[in-house]
C-alpha cells in the first residue's frame, strides 16, 4: 500500500526541550478523509505545523514521509510545492500586502499560471467563498473577522489545488452559513479526490461530507490513543473527552 502521508513515531519539541508530540504514528492514503480530534493543548496544531515545516517545531525523532519520500528537512515552500497545504487555525495578518496581489503571485509562482489569466482565476474562485472583488483589495487577514479568515484559508486551498489538505479547525468562530459553506467545500475537495486531514472539535463541519469515508483519530497528550469512524465524533460530542478516555482506559 502506498501512503500519501506517513508519520512514523514522530516526536516533536518546541522551545528548548518541551516535547509535545511523543511518538505519533499515522498513515493516510490518497483520497482518504481523516479527522483528528483531541482536547485543547493535546498537540493537533503542532502536528499540522510540523507536517508543514514550521521552523519552531523541531523533529527530535521519527519521520514524516510524503509519497514515500522523507520530508523532515524540507523547507515549507518545498513541501507546499510537493502538494501539501494547510489552512491555519490562526492565520497571520500581513500588513500592506493586498490579497489580490498575493493570490496572483501564488498562482504565477507556485502554479505557473500566466499573468494574464491569474486575475480572473482569483476573482472567480473568490466568489465561490463569498469574497467580492472589492474585498480582495484588503490586506491579507488584516482586521478580518473569524469567518473571513477561515474562508480565506479555504480560498487558498481551492487555488493551489494541493494533494493533501490539512485543515486546522476551519469551523471555529464561523457562523452557521459559513460553516455550511466550508463543509460543502470540504465535500467538493473530497470529490475531487484530494486527501484531507481535518482537525476539529465538532461534528457539524462534516454535515455535507460523505460519512462512510471518514476515519477518526483521537490525540491525547501528543499521541494517537484511539481510532474510529464517524460515530466516534458523536460519542465525543455527547460524552466529552474525559469520559471517553476513562471508558477506553486511555488514561493509563
Amino acid at each position, binding site marked *: 500500500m502506498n501512503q500519501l502521508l506517513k508519520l512514523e513515531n514522530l516526536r516533536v519539541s518546541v522551545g528548548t526541550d518541551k516535547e509535545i508530540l511523543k511518538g505519533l504514528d499515522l498513515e493516510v492514503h490518497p483520497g482518504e478523509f481523516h479527522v483528528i480530534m483531541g482536547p485543547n493543548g493535546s498537540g493537533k496544531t503542532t502536528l499540522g505545523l510540523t507536517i508543514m515545516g514550521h521552523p519552531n517545531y523541531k523533529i527530535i525523532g521519527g519521520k514524516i514521509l510524503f509519497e514515500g519520500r522523507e520530508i523532515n528537512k524540507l523547507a515549507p515552500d518545498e513541501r*507546499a510545492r510537493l502538494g501539501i*497545504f494547510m489552512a*491555519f487555525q490562526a492565520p*497571520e495578518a500581513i*500588513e500592506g500586502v493586498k490579497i489580490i*496581489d498575493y493570490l496572483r503571485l501564488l498562482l504565477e509562482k507556485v502554479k505557473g499560471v500566466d499573468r494574464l489569466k491569474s486575475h480572473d482565476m482569483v476573482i472567480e474562485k473568490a466568489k465561490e467563498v463569498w469574497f467580492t472583488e472589492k474585498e480582495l483589495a484588503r490586506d*491579507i487577514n488584516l482586521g478580518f473577522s473569524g469567518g473571513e479568515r477561515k474562508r480565506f484559508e479555504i480560498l487558498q486551498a481551492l487555488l493551489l489545488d494541493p494533494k493533501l489538505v490539512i485543515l486546522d479547525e476551519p469551523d471555529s468562530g464561523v457562523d452557521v452559513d459559513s460553516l455550511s459553506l466550508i463543509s460543502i467545500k470540504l465535500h467538493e475537495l473530497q470529490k475531487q479526490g484530494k486527501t484531507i486531514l481535518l482537525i476539529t472539535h465538532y461534528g457539524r463541519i462534516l454535515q455535507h461530507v460523505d460519512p462512510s469515508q471518514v476515519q477518526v483519530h483521537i490525540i491525547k497528550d501528543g499521541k494517537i490513543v484511539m481510532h474510529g469512524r464517524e460515530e466516534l465524533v458523536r460519542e465525543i460530542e455527547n460524552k466529552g473527552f474525559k469520559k471517553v478516555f476513562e471508558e477506553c482506559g486511555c488514561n493509563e
Partner: protein
Amino acid sequence: MSELTLQDAKSIIENQIETLKKRNKEPDWMTKLRYKAMNAFFEAPHNDPIITDPLDYIAKAEEEMYPEVKNLDELPPEMLALLDRLGIADVEKKYIAGLAVQSDTSIVLNDFLKEWRKKGLIMESMEDAIRNHDMMKELFMKQFHPEESKLAAYHTAVWNGGVFLHVDAGLKVPMPLHLFFLIQNSAMAQAPHIIIDAREGSEIHLIEGCTSPVLVRHSLHLDMSEVYVGKNARVKLSVLQNWPEYVHTRPMTRAIVEQGGEFINTTVGLGTGKSNIANPKYIVKDGGYVELNGIILGQKDYYVDLGGEMLLEGTGARGMNASKSVIMDNSTVITRGLIHAKAPKTKGHISCDALILNHDAKMETYPGLASEVDDAELSHEAAIGKIREEELFYLMSHGLKEEEATQLIVKGFVNPLLKDIPLEFVVEIRKIIEMAVSGGM
C-alpha cells in the same frame, strides 16, 4: 584635512560665482547674496558625521553650457537614452502633460505647461525665475540663512539649477507635475534650488525624480527647497531619490504652512547615495497640517539620517511624521523627528517602523516631542525588528520561496506610505525594492 587652502577655496568659489553670474545674467541682488554667503561659509558652523571637511567637496568649476531645449525631442541623445533607461519614457506617455525635464539649467516646457501658464501656473528653471520675477526677492533664501551652516552657505554661494513653481490663488492643478533633474558631469550642477509658492486656496503636486547619471566620484549634492503653502492651499511634494552609491546628499527642505494649509512631503530614498542626511523643518500655522512620509532603503554601507522638525505654531495645527525603513547589508539608518507643540489644541504623531533584514545593518530612532501648552496631543510609536517568522512561514507554507516571500513582505511594509505616488512610480519603486532584497539575500 583638505588639500585646498582657505584662499584656494575662496578663489574657486569666487570663480564659480562670477561664472554663474555671467551665464545666468543674474540681477545684482543675487550676486550680492552669493558673495555674502561665500563669506559666511568660512565662519558658519559645520556639523556632519561623514563630510568632516566641506573643502574636500569644493570642486573646480567647469563651464558647461547646455543648449536651449524647447521640447523633449530636442534633448541631447544621451539624455533621451537615459530617460528611456529610467523607464521615464513610459511614465511620460501617461503623464506627458505634467512632465518637465531639467537639464542643468534649462527646463523643457511642454504644451501642458504652456497652457497652464495662462491660468497662473509658473514652472521655470530657477535661473530664469530669478531674472523674470521680482517676487523672487521675497521668496529666495527666506526660510534659510547662509550663516546657519557651512553647507547652507555653500549652497547659497554656488546654487545652480532647480525650479520655481508658482500657483496663483485658487488655481487647482489636477495632475501631478513631474520634474526630473538630469545632472550631468558638470561640477556646477550640484546645488539646485527649489521654490514652491502655492498661493491661497491653490492645489499642486510636484514629483521630483532625482537621478544623476555621470557624476564625478565623491561628489556632494546639496539641494535646497523652500516651500510656501498659502492659506487653505494644498501642496504635495514627492521626492524620489535614486542616487548612485558614491554621492553624498544633503537635501535641505523647509516649509511654511499658513492657516488651514496642508503640506504632504513624501521622500522615497531608494538609492540614498553613500550618505544622506536631512532635517526638514516645517512651520505650521492655525489649523494647518503637515505630513512627512519617509521611505528609506538602507543598502551596502550607506548612512542615512532622516530628521524632521515640525513647529506647530498655530491653534489646532497638526503634524505627522511617519517613516518606514528597510535596512540591509552594513547600512546605518537613523530616524529622528521632533514635533513641537507651541499653540493650543495642536496634535502630532511620530511613527517609525524599521525592518532589519540582516545582522550587520544598524537602526537608531529618536522620536522627540515637546509641548509648551497643556492641551496638545502628542504621541509616538516605534517598532524596529526583523521580518516576523510567522509572516514568512505563512507565505512560504503556501509555496512562495523565501526570497519571494521576503520581497512581498518588504513591499507591503512600505506600501502604506506610497499612497500619494502615482502607480507608474509605485511599480518602479517596487521593482527597485525587489532587486535590493534579492541582492541582499
